[in-house]
């Protein structure tokens, strides 16, 4: 496009510009203004950063408000996990338990935090909304073994989350009222 090229002639520097002094003074002004401005440093361990919604931190297991563990050990997360960080040993819920109608719960649930890539696929795939990537983003330990989290630690980290569906509770109630859907 030779027609569209606009050639701008470079002007020779004026005497003041040749001494560099006005430029240096304006540069000093800029840095001085910067010096007086509010600092952007966040003093990290004392002041934690705001965690945006949808943040994918450490994967945790959660309980519903009734204190029931939501995982039913369907192992979908174990299959979907790209780095194969999750290992589930399925187990049955004993007969006498109030949650016996759920039938299954993990006997052991391990996430290797050193393998986890925080992709959030386990959370996405979970039909029971039992695994969540929560806000915790600092993990450290003195050995590799220490960073393989077992079920207790995962529940401890996850805590209880609000449940919107109460799927199993409703199912049990409807069964008791005789209009079983399933």
């Amino acid at each position, binding site marked *: 496009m030779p027609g569209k090229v606009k050639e701008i002639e470079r002007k020779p520097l004026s005497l003041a510009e040749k001494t560099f002094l006005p430029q*240096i003074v304006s*540069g*000093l002004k*800029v*840095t*001085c203004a*910067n*010096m007086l*401005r509010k*600092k*952007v*440093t966040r*003093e990290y361990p004392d002041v934690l950063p705001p965690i945006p919604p949808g943040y994918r931190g450490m994967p945790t297991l959660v309980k519903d408000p009734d204190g029931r563990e939501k995982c039913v050990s369907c192992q979908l997360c174990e299959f979907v996990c790209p780095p194969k960080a999750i290992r589930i040993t399925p187990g049955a819920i004993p007969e006498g338990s109030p949650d016996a109608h759920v039938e299954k719960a993990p006997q052991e649930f391990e996430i290797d935090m050193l393998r986890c890539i925080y992709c959030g696929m386990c959370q996405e795939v979970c039909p029971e909304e039992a695994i969540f990537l929560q806000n915790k983003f600092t993990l450290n330990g003195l050995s590799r073994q220490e960073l393989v989290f077992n079920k207790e630690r995962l529940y401890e980290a996850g805590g209880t989350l609000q449940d919107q569906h109460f799927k199993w509770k409703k199912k049990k109630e409807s069964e008791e009222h005789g209009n079983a859907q399933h």
Partner: protein
Amino acid sequence: MDWIQLAIEAGFGLAFIIVVMSMAGLTVVAERKFCGFIQGRLGPNRTTIPILGSIPFFGRLITRMGLFQLVADGSKFLFKEEIVPGHVNKFYYNLAPIVALIPPLVPLVVLPFGQMTLADGTIRQLIIANVDIGMLVILAFSSLGVYGTVLAGWAANSKYPFMGGIRASAQMISYELTMGLSILPVFLWANVPGSTEGLSIANIVVFQQTHWFVYLQPLTALLFLVALFAETNRAPFDMAESETDLVGGFHTEYGAFKFGIFFVSEYAHVIVGSGLFVLLFLGGSNFLPMLPNPWPVGIPGAILSTLWFIAKTSALVFFFIWIRWTLPRFRYDQVMNLGWKMLLPVAIANLVFVMVLLATITPVAAQ
């Protein structure tokens, strides 16, 4: 020989070295702190010493100011392993840091750091050696300062330090001329005909009781300042260690305390250079231009004026830091062009101008 006099002077010299070395340490912290401020950061503010740091108010204040960082940095240099690379020239490799540290410290003896008003109203400049060639002593020793850099660069036997050493020596040669020529007009102005003060710095300070040279001779001051930046190897003239193209320049192969000595000597150089600029152009220990000195009689006045001198010097050291984090480094050919094609002709023209001016004004003023 008067041994007591000698002991007092030696004591003063030692005190001077202690003051300058601790100021050098503080300047390192100040550099890191102001660098942080300019870049929107806070700078070092976490390092603390267990018991001192937990003193209610001051411990926290000092921690936040980063002053404990000074101790941390220093002891880090001390406790690191002294590695001597296998390919260096051992003798010169070990000699270089020593050669680098001594030249900035020797000129201290001829710097008048304060003034004392005696009971009968006479004013004495406080100076260790009030010789009439004070300025020459400073120039002589500051010109020896480059050998530390050059030796370090050569002894390291490695290409980047070598380049740093070559650059340092070339830059030194180029800017020493400008520096010398920008000092002359000041002495021409201060020495009335018939004066026997010669090149004494104390005389310059006495002369500046009413008017400072920074506004009597702004161009001279500017030339001297630029040459001072170049001589102290500070940004934007830090060609010898320009870390972007020469890794670390002349001290690439140095580590631990030897590097620490280079580091401290650079800051000592900056402090002595700032002090010299204050003495020559900013009135030394005099209070403010066109105001009488408010220093009381005797020791308190001496201490106050010394503190005032240190305050002025610190302000100029701050200016050094401010410039460093503002300007990008010059390219090497730009440094040479600036030195030989701009500063040197301007310095000569300035000298001639001042000479003509004095030759025409002095007879008028003398009447």
